[in-house]
């Protein structure tokens, strides 16, 4: 196990390095002029723009810029943000990631809490009203864009009914709409998957055997079926959680949620290389770690994987 972990972590470091290099070159060759973005429509001279470019090292050769960044990173210095020099990049990312994490953990918890029992129940009561309803609901939940649902939710619950705030992340009320809206697509996806895997497992021989031995249906389902049905779901959740920090930018915009997706988008638009690099490194690290965690969890749940 230790050897396996070391091997996977070493691979992860290599991935991080390659990703940072790729990100650097994408940003370096990206068209645009951050100096112009900074001055906006203010009166400006070409000398002034050049002075701003010099100040931020935008005129330096690529190897100097990359070298400076790597050198600082090794000492734990993420650099200074061009768009927001008054705030440290570490603080910027921590604040934003924290907000995105809160949103996603709550949304996933809600999605799992509803999708798992509903999906399993729908599978065991096939062709019932609940089965049809949950299938239809999950189709709608996957098909309808969540940003549209978000905007409609704001119109209904904030504007028309006045029950919930239209934006912000101050009070518990302001969490309700973004969490519920974000959970819908996940709920729909998990529900369809667990229903499908449960149906598949229910048709396995060992389930027939368990029934033949006289076990009650709920015992058969909870003790034998669910554990097997969960395996693909865990893989999927592990995969999706890896993108938990980056996948919510559209919803963050709709609800003005001060999260990492929005920060990432701003940094790219402003061509703030230091912030983009820092976020990419964070996201890559999360993906690498989540892949390892998913593999290990799989081994815990499925003894066959441990033997292998």
């Amino acid at each position, binding site marked *: 196990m230790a050897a396996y972990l070391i091997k996977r972590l070493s691979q992860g470091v290599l991935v991080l390095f390659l990703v940072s290099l790729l990100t650097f070159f994408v940003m370096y060759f990206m068209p645009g002029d951050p100096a112009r973005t900074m001055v906006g429509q*203010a009166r400006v001279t070409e000398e002034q723009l050049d*002075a701003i470019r010099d*100040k931020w090292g935008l005129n330096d050769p690529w190897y100097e810029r990359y070298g400076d960044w790597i050198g600082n990173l090794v000492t734990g210095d993420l650099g200074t943000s061009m768009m*927001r020099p008054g705030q440290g990049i570490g603080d910027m990312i921590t*604040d934003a990631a924290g907000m995105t994490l809160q949103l996603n953990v709550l949304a996933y918890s809600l999605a799992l809490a509803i999708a798992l029992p509903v999906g399993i129940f729908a599978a065991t009561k096939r062709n019932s009203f609940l089965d049809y309803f949950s299938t239809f609901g999950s189709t709608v939940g996957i098909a309808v864009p969540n940003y549209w649902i978000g905007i409609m939710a704001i119109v209904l619950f904030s*504007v028309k009914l006045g029950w919930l705030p239209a934006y912000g992340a101050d009070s518990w009320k302001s969490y309700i709409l973004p969490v519920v809206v974000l959970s819908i697509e996940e709920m729909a996806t998990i529900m369809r998957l667990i229903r499908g895997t449960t149906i598949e497992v229910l048709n396995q021989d060992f389930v027939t055997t368990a029934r033949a031995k006289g076990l009650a249906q709920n015992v058969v389902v909870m003790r034998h079926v669910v554990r097997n049905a969960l395996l693909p779901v865990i893989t999927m959740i592990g995969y999706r959680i890896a993108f938990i920090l980056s996948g919510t930018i559209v919803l963050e915009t709709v609800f003005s949620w001060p999260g990492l997706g929005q920060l990432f988008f701003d940094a790219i638009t402003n061509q703030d290389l230091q912030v983009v690099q820092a976020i990419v490194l964070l996201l890559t690290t999360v993906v690498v770690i989540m892949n390892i965690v998913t593999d290990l969890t799989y081994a815990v749940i499925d003894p066959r994987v441990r033997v292998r």
Partner: protein
Amino acid sequence: MLKAAAAAGLIPVLSGATLAQRAAAQDAQPVRGSTYIMLSQDAIESLSPDDTTEGVQNATISNLFDGLYVVNEQYELEPVLADSYEASEDGLVYTFTLKSGVTFHNGDAFTAQDVLYTYNWIMDEANASTRTANFELVDTVEAPDDQTVVVTLKEADVSFMVNVATTLIYPKDDHAAKGEDAFKGEPVGTGPFTYGEWAPQQRVVLNANEDYFRGRPNVDAFQVDVVLEAAGRTAALETGQADSSFWYLNAEDNIRLMETDDFTVYEVLQVTVNHFPLNTTHPFLGDKAARQAMMFALDRQSFADDIFLGQAQVATSNLSPAIEKYYNPDVAQYEFDPEKSKQILDDAGWSEGSDGIREKDGVKAQFTMMVFQGDTQRRPEAEIAQQWWADVGIQCDLQEGITSDILAGLVDGTYDAGLFNWVYGGSGGDPDARDTLGTGGANNFFQYSNEEVDQLLQDGIRELDEAKRIEIYKRIQEIIADELPLLPLLNPQQIVFFANRVKGLPEKVLYPDGIYQKIYTLWIEE
């Protein structure tokens, strides 16, 4: 003998006595308390005066800091940190008498040394300040005593009061100790509000300055909430979660909100021009006749009616009618007339090719227009124009790009044409357009070079006689309307909503952003 500058002809300069009279004439009695909430369409990236180039940041930061003067919502210059000023007859020396007894938020006394420090910091190229261009013609700044600042110019600059005297002032000791980068997150000014909280992607909270020299604000706090989507900002106004939005709402929402009685509404023509900038060195676009033909092929009124839903009017040249004093309506007019467009192209030798695209001497009437990525409001103008031009034999291809890349590419001649709004004179009420219409200007998006315009721009900035100055800028508009380095489409309206609970608002407004310099005079009545 010094006399008050004819720079006062630029925009009116109010005296302290006039301001006091206006304040005394106000009927209603302010109520103290509550928080005023303004919505921002972008994250507030900084709280330093050096980052006020963007409108909403300026509206926020100008409540933390003061300048010697400020341009108010009537396009008048109001004294703030200065009591008065005098200018020499030749317009080269400005002497400011500063108010006494003013302190910064940290208790430090405000003196002429702070003005000296601020102006010199901006002029020092090593600091790469965003405001350096405003100080281009400043030669020296001196502080002979704590209440006096003397600014000497290299040449007369009529825009000096608007561009320089309104500069927000740093606290010398605090700013020098922290450095600009740290200061952006730890601002200390003389303004009506003090720093409270800064979560850039979420909100800024500024607290009332109990010791503000112009009177403690009526509201306890000024809060700026970041709401990125226009629909979200509309919802926030409708639910009463906020008092105003700095940036525009969607046109459909403007109409809907105006039909309610829930808001004080100001409808003001903007100083920006919605336009197509054209590369005048392009083989086709470089032909003045071609550009004029393109104008006749456009039904700009339908843009105003159908795309902007009546919330814009057809533009004539580089200046907007919002700058009343300098605006010239008597310039070349371009009514929608596709037949005339075709005639002009025929007369200029652009004959129709077999593929329907005109050509002349092997050059096709073809170019690419760059549109900003995600510019859902303006893109239809380009798409419709594309069709109208195709009808007269001109091919226009559209391509999306990043804003800063398009702007830089137009300046260096990489791109052929664009579509956006820009100010070509009129910022702060001043018609100067040297950096946009002058040869080699940093924002000359057209590769445009006209000797007469260059001379007029230089004359305009130096002319102290108001009547002559007006003629200079009217002549510039005539030339631009004739030569068309840009195709002026519309002057959009700015429609601003303030919740009814906000009191103390002016009856009429020429410059809505100026209201945010006056938050401290407003109050909330539930």
